[in-house]
């Protein structure tokens, strides 16, 4: 069963009459993770925001977007708002600007939870704190009382994942969540996203330009270039035997860097291959 089916999506700019997405059709199977890869300007974020209908007002869209069988492109704004957060959750790239800088994290989270559930304050707090503990955030009480600028990028991302855990949506759209993070935070966030999927069995739409992260977390992948989908399929086949020239180009350039690094690491040392076991935090 497909949780999201997008058919003939067209997005254009009403001000400049420029077409951003020409004619996209894709689907996300239930319980699987579809990754969208492409370079900047390829239209990945615009596509995903159009599923949530959160694009800028001058970007118009047409086509069918079926979410659990229902065409959400035709819903009224109020109906759509009810779906957002509860059924469709978004994890954004820049944690610092995803939270309201004027109030502490706790206030922002409490507001979100109160919009969708009927819990009182104590209940909300209990749920979010247990979620935060499961994403390896120590001292959740203390963190809830801090402002976004006092926390690091990695922690903010994990808070967003914890919020997703509590909301239990059917689809999580993650828009370049690891791009702005450094190596260690990136690893931790990717681990948490994998665990999140295992625990909740939700589907995920993962946007990234980093093929390494995509390889680790996604089941299927879709390559976008200049607003069009050039290739899609199962992750192993697309990355090991890319058919389209652009995919081949992306894979080969990424490989150049990785192979060089791997050669450096291996260089003569016999136990190098198994020596770097990836510890789970």
């Amino acid at each position, binding site marked *: 069963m497909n949780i999201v089916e997008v058919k003939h999506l067209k997005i254009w700019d009403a001000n400049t009459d420029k077409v951003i997405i020409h004619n996209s059709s894709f689907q996300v199977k239930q319980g699987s993770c579809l990754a969208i890869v492409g370079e*900047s300007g390829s239209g990945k974020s615009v596509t995903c925001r159009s599923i949530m209908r959160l694009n800028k007002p001058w970007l118009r869209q047409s086509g069918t977007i079926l979410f659990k069988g229902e065409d959400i492109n035709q819903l009224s704004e109020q109906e759509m708002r009810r779906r957002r957060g509860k059924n469709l959750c978004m994890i954004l790239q820049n944690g610092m600007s995803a939270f309201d800088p004027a109030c502490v994290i706790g206030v922002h989270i409490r507001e979100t939870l109160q919009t969708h559930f009927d819990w009182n304050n104590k209940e909300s707090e209990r749920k979010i704190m247990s979620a935060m503990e499961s994403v390896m955030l120590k001292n959740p009480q203390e963190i809830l009382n801090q402002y976004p600028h006092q926390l690091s990028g990695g922690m903010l991302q994990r808070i967003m994942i914890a919020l997703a855990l509590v909301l239990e949506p059917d689809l999580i759209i993650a828009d370049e969540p690891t791009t702005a993070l450094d190596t260690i935070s990136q690893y931790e966030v990717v681990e948490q996203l994998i665990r999140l999927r295992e625990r909740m069995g939700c589907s995920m739409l993962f946007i990234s330009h980093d093929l390494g992260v995509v390889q680790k977390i996604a089941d299927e992948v879709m390559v976008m270039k200049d607003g069009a989908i050039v290739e899609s399929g199962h992750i192993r086949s697309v990355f090991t035997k890319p058919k389209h020239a652009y995919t081949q180009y992306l894979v080969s350039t990424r490989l150049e860097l990785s192979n060089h690094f791997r050669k450096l690491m291996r260089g003569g040392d016999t136990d190098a291959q198994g020596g770097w076991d990836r510890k789970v935090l």
Partner: protein
Amino acid sequence: MRLLRNLSKDKLAMTSLAVIVVIVAVGVFAPLCAPHDPEEVNMKLRYASSSWSYWLGNDHLGRCVLSRLIYGIRPSVLWVMVALMISVLVGAVVGFIAGYFKGKADAWIMRLCDVMLSFPGYVMTLAVVGILGAGLEHILIAFVVMKWAWFARVIRTSVMQFSEMEYVKFAKASGIGSFRIITKHIIPVTFADVAVIASGSMCSMMLQISGLSFLGLGIQAPHAEWGMMLNETREVMFSRPELMLAPGLAIVIVVSAFNFLSDALQVALDPKLMTSTSQGKLRKKEVGKAVYEYSRG
């Protein structure tokens, strides 16, 4: 010039600019433009309505309203512009020093600005006029003294924001001197902000001068000034309202023109609207494309 080309796209801006240029020119060449002597009293023509020789009629002393209006441009518009420029200059110098060099210089300059800004505007102007005596020069001195601190603050914020830009860092790293960096990199980018706030303040300064003249504290009789002309017609406000029309409209038109120009300048001075090709028709599309792509990153 690039600025004029950009402005020419906006009809309202061009109209405002034309109005201002005409008024400034008329004011500068007042002796040539005015049909009569503004101070010529002619009691037989008191409150006369418009006629062929006196286009806008005569005021309570029989003086030609049109000539008074024209001569009134000088104090109401031209002198205010001079005061504004002096104020902006002082504020800019102080703002640049504070914003670019930061540290102790910035801290002490800002404390001085805080002191200056804590005095309420009108009250201070009245106090200065009270000490020095009534008269146009004294009001303008009061304005300069009051306003420079505000300009310094705003310009400092703008300069601080632009000093953090990477091209300034590169210039510093390359060993280019501070003065050169300020003139080549910081002044052009902050010029837009400065022009916008200066033209915006022009309006408030003009209105203040008119207000003070209306109260009798500004320019003294028998010189012509728009606010004072309004004051003089106060007694016959209800019996002859048309006499208030001329100076009142004049003030409204000039203040509005500066306002519109200020808005248009902000758009016109945006560097992102510069293009390397100078074909007229294609430019609109290219500009749109360039700004779109730039914002897309």
